[in-house]
């Protein structure tokens, strides 16, 4: 079923029910559908290609544009608002998008990229165009395209179809019990699969989605829980850990109506899980394991399974997971392979990356093992990707940028553990003889050329970088 049918079902069942709240703007399901149709009509001029890029912070406009593009039979290419110019140009080249639709804030920064060859249009510019009335559109099996760093330096395009969304959303609803009586607070970016999956779920069951720009202002998130009589919250583990700084009575009070907090699997501190088990007197803390390429492959509801706080749960219904060991050692751990209707069939125009999919099994690059009751535990990755609060970063990309600086003889980037983000990037730098380079100069260069989550959090000046005979950095020796 297409996600436009999710919306149409809600319009039929609950036309006047509140679908979406974004600050002072709120829309019923009927109003949302009307806005979506208007948007589809406004982009009818783009009829040469099948892809339109969307780049915006969280807003009702994001949702209208996202659904509007899909409703018009096109595929949405999701762009992160703070994308670097290099990454932006690469994605536009490989996605073959026809235009970029964006918020006014994002437009200001996008138009600075003078090498952009396609139109950049702000939401209101589009919506102010004359309405062409009811139109018919061709159907498209594919819903959206998103780029992920994955296991190589070059971001890979991942295409998500409507049937994958349908399968995953129904699994989320069945396991986590979402219903039309829920009020869902969402402070996660919609341009990532975690936030977008939460939105699909709200749309599927007909609950009310309260969209927040982000979770930076924790007081505001707490106020929103109360003000909207929220029943669910989606948040990354770092946000949950930060909540624990509040007085316990405040947390008990604000979370008293919450039946579910859904988080994702990026290293949730045990202490955070244990605290939220107590705070949620009438609810559960849950997590999942998945990749953009294989969304929500497992689910874990913590308070029903004491003692397995480090597990990401059991395989979702209809999803197969196997552990593939390279050697016959004593360890139970091996690479996690996933197969199911939530898994992509191939990457977007990337035959090299397609080698990670073997007979419909996706090789995740993650290492893990099952316990005797079928609970999955993650133990690491078999590659060098750094996972910073869910953002995956290839070390090579950072090394290439740092190497541009004069006075650098050699450099290695790698992940180190971090209490809040799970991992952050550390740099070991070998300076050239007589170089006066300092850490601040390296950071200044990085912030001008990399997205902010890729900026190294620690820098050490060292004598040498350990390497193999083939010149590859032995990152395991640096950690």
């Amino acid at each position, binding site marked *: 079923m297409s996600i436009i049918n999710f919306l149409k079902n809600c319009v039929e069942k609950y036309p006047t029910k509140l679908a979406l709240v974004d600050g002072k703007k709120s829309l019923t399901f009927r109003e949302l559908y009307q806005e979506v149709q208007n948007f589809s009509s406004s982009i009818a001029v783009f009829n040469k290609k099948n892809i339109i890029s969307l780049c915006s912070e969280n807003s009702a406009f994001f949702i209208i544009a996202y659904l509007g593009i899909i409703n018009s039979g096109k595929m949405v290419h999701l762009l992160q608002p*703070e994308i670097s110019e290099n990454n932006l140009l690469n994605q536009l080249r490989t996605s073959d998008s026809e235009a970029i639709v964006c918020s006014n804030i994002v437009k200001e920064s996008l138009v600075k990229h003078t090498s952009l060859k396609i139109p950049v249009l702000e939401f209101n510019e589009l919506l102010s165009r004359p309405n062409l009335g009811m139109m018919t559109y061709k159907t498209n099996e594919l819903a959206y395209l998103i780029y992920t760093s994955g296991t190589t330096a070059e971001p890979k395009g991942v295409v998500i179809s409507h049937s994958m969304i349908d399968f995953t959303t129904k699994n989320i609803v069945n396991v986590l019990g979402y219903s039309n009586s829920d009020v869902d607070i969402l402070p996660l970016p919609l341009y990532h699969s975690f936030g977008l999956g939460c939105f699909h779920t709200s749309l599927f069951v007909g609950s009310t989605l309260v969209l927040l720009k*982000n979770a930076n202002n924790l*007081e505001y998130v707490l106020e929103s829980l109360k003000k909207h009589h929220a029943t669910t919250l989606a948040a990354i583990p770092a946000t949950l850990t930060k909540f624990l*700084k509040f007085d316990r009575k405040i947390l008990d009070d604000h979370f008293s109506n919450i039946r579910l907090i859904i988080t994702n699997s990026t290293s949730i501190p045990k202490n955070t899980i244990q605290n939220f088990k107590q705070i949620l007197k009438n609810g559960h803390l849950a997590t999942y394991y998945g990749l953009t390429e294989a969304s929500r492959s497992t689910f874990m509801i913590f308070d029903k399974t004491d003692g397995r706080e480090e597990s990401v749960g059991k395989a979702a219904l209809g999803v197969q997971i196997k552990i593939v060991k390279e050697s016959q050692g004593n360890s139970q751990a091996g690479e996690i392979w996933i197969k199911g209707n939530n898994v992509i069939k191939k990457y977007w125009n990337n035959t090299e990356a397609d080698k990670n999919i073997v007979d419909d099994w996706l090789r995740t690059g993650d290492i893990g093992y099952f316990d005797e009751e079928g609970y999955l535990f993650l133990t690491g990755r078999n590659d060098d990707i750094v996972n910073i*609060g869910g953002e995956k970063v290839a070390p090579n990309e950072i090394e290439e940028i740092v190497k541009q600086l004069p006075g650098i003889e050699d450099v290695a980037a790698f992940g180190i553990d971090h209490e809040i983000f799970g991992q952050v990037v550390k740099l070991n730098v070998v300076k050239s003889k007589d170089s006066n380079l300092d850490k*601040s100069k390296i950071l200044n260069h990085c912030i001008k050329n990399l997205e*902010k989550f890729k900026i190294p*959090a620690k820098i050490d000046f060292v004598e040498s970088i350990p390497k193999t005979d083939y010149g590859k950095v032995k990152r395991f020796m640096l950690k």
Partner: protein
Amino acid sequence: MDAKNAIKDIFFQVFPNLAEKDFSWDKEQKDYANWDSFAQLNLITFAEAKFNIVLSLEESISIKSANDLLQCIQAHLK
């Protein structure tokens, strides 16, 4: 460069779209459009590199304005 100017400099590096007129020592995290947890990490990293200090997790989390960062740095420099 004194600590105050250095910290102001760091804010303009981490928030490149921040205009001079919009900078204030008391302006809080919630009033910045882009001050998310990654920007917070960048502010701490830049300050640690500039002043050759290490901030604890508690200190890092408690910083919610330019003034908070200044006070934190000054406490380390004493």
